[in-house]
């Protein structure tokens, strides 16, 4: 078990290091001159340009900038020129090029928003999608099955920005049945939080539950054909026990894997959903940062995204070993 963790941890560190280098390389390969766009809508004068560049240490070579960034992450560092020293303790993710606001605080307020959207929607589409899939597998060929398959396909083919906007138009602004999408921290007002998150949850939930129901239906049909289901019936178990205690238990494993990887991938920021519902999560913030070449924010969001993806892979592997006794940790090389 330990060997498994050590190996995965080392691989993860290597991946994160490679990603951080790639983001830096991409930034400096491009037409990177963030200082140029920081003088209001006017072109920066030479003096202004100089001062901004020096205050953000952009005058140094990319390698030294990367070294100081990494030193900052582990040890903390001081940013800026002699006349303006910004202290930034470990783990220092740099400062917003424009407002010198520590990137830590920016992540601090955008992370909960993305988490609320992604995890909330995940609960909707994993539960609803899987249940829909299971039921249509059990009633295979019935009208319910055909109807469910039809709607699933219809929603699976829509795009979030199209469906999201329609839901906004009809249910939020026209009829007012749904409250306006906004982020209210659950600690202060739990129901406000749920209300604010309903529209993104429903939109994401509908689209993803379509694919989950199609996937879980196929899994369930395959499981129902297994021999141990026939044994369970031969033991005299009722149909409900056969479906839920035996069939579901076996069919759930691949669903957990797919859900784990899906959610891991989205925790780094769902830029398009956030833009559709104008929720300032990590994705939307990073989008703005890339356009305005705000390197530290882009770097932080991409790294957080990568950490979530790598973590979710490890967690999925561990969950797999817990759910499926046949799998032993470390031997499950994909």
């Amino acid at each position: 078990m330990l060997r498994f963790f050590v190996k995965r941890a080392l691989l993860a560190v290597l991946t994160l290091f490679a990603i951080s280098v790639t983001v830096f390389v991409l930034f400096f390969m491009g037409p990177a001159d963030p200082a140029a766009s920081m003088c209001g809508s006017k072109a920066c004068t030479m003096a202004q340009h100089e001062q901004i560049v020096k205050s953000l240490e952009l005058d140094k070579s990319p390698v030294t900038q990367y070294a100081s960034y990494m030193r900052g992450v582990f040890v903390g560092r001081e940013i800026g020129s002699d006349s303006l020293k910004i202290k930034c303790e470990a783990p220092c993710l740099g400062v917003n090029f424009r407002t010198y606001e520590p990137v830590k605080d920016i992540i601090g307020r955008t992370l909960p928003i993305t988490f609320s959207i992604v995890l909330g929607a995940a609960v909707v589409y994993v539960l609803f999608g899987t249940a829909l899939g299971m039921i249509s597998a059990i009633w295979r060929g019935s009208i319910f099955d055909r109807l469910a398959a039809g709607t699933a396909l219809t929603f699976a083919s829509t795009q979030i920005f199209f469906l999201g906007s329609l839901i906004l138009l009809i249910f939020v602004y026209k009829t007012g049945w749904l409250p306006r999408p906004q982020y209210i921290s659950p600690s202060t007002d739990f129901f406000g939080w749920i209300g604010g998150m309903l529209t993104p949850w429903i939109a994401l939930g509908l689209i993803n539950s379509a694919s989950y129901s199609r996937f879980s239906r196929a899994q369930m049909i395959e499981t129902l054909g297994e021999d141990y289901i026939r044994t369970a019936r031969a033991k005299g178990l009722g149909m409900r026990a056969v479906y839920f205690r035996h069939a579901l238990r076996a069919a759930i494993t691949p669903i957990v894997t797919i859900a784990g990887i899906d959610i891991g991938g989205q925790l780094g920021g769902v830029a398009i959903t956030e833009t559709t519902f104008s929720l300032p999560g990590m994705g939307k913030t990073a989008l703005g940062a890339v356009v305005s070449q705000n390197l530290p924010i882009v770097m932080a969001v991409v790294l957080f995204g990568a950490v979530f993806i790598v973590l979710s892979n490890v967690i999925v592997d561990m969950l797999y070993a817990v759910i499926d006794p046949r799998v032993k940790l470390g031997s499950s090389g994909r």
Partner: protein
Amino acid sequence: MTANESPYLEVADLQVRFRTEDGLVQAVNGVSFSVERGKTLGIVGESGSGKSVTSLSIMGLHNPKSTTMKGSIKVGGKELIGLSQDQLRKLRGRDVSMIFQDPLTALHPFYTIGRQIVEAYRIHHPDASKAVAKKRAIEMLDRVGIPQPDRRFKQYPHEFSGGMRQRAMIAMSLVNDPNLLIADEPTTALDVTVQAQILDLLEDLQREFNSAVILITHDLGVVSQVADDVLVMYGGRVAEFGTVEQIMRSAQHPYTWGLLASMPSLHGDPDAELLPIKGNPPSLLNIPSGCVFHPRCAYAMLKGGPCDVEVPELLPLRFADEPGHTVACHLPERERNRTYQEDIASVGVAQ
């Protein structure tokens, strides 16, 4: 043998049809037989002969939507055909239970062996506490010859060897002392040495629980070792029925001859030619007319003869020394005895 009791299982003129996209599959049409408690009936036949369908019909495990069943199945005097799924459910595992060919796929991969046996027990003893059920399960595991049953109790199917898994399967099916145990090719997936152990185990358990056993196999060797009576099935119909001696020594149906001739025998002449039956099992979508075996029967009387026109009835022999040997074949009895002596007696396992 306690002949006076009425037979525990009585199947009369059983017909099973499945509706599929490609047409109506007549898996079983007109099968009748019976099994007394303490006796073992061997059902023999190639794949597609309807032997597994028959056993599953007894358990009522067919998909009700696409299956139509006619005729009668009586277990312990109670008619099964027509019972609701719920009523059938109470029988399964308690009065009638079943073990399958490949125990690895037949046991749930994610639950421990112990838990699956406990579950089988508590279905029919809902008031039994977990401890009682656990003790009963460990007892059964020990009874079927699994070493350190309490440690094995907590292990998963994939941690058992092939033979051990089949023993666990048997333990699970006998935990409620059923009166009838159906074993659908229990040893096919096992190698020969383990096969013998399992068959001995079945015999001991049958004697101990005095239950009726149906052993489904395509292997005549297994039948001759364990079964009391033998039912030969072909194309969804009964070809021949009789005691083990009658079938092994004086088989009447050309299909049974074919089976005997294609089995090597230990004490026979090793380099004697084996005579396989030519052709393939019939398609159950369009059953051949008349006797279902006639296309492959070397002795079929075709030109004007009844074989490809009339369906032969299952009739008892007139000249046999003991009663009970029935066969469905148009060939005259005397000619059959003669052909048996000339062609079959010297070949294969019949020697």
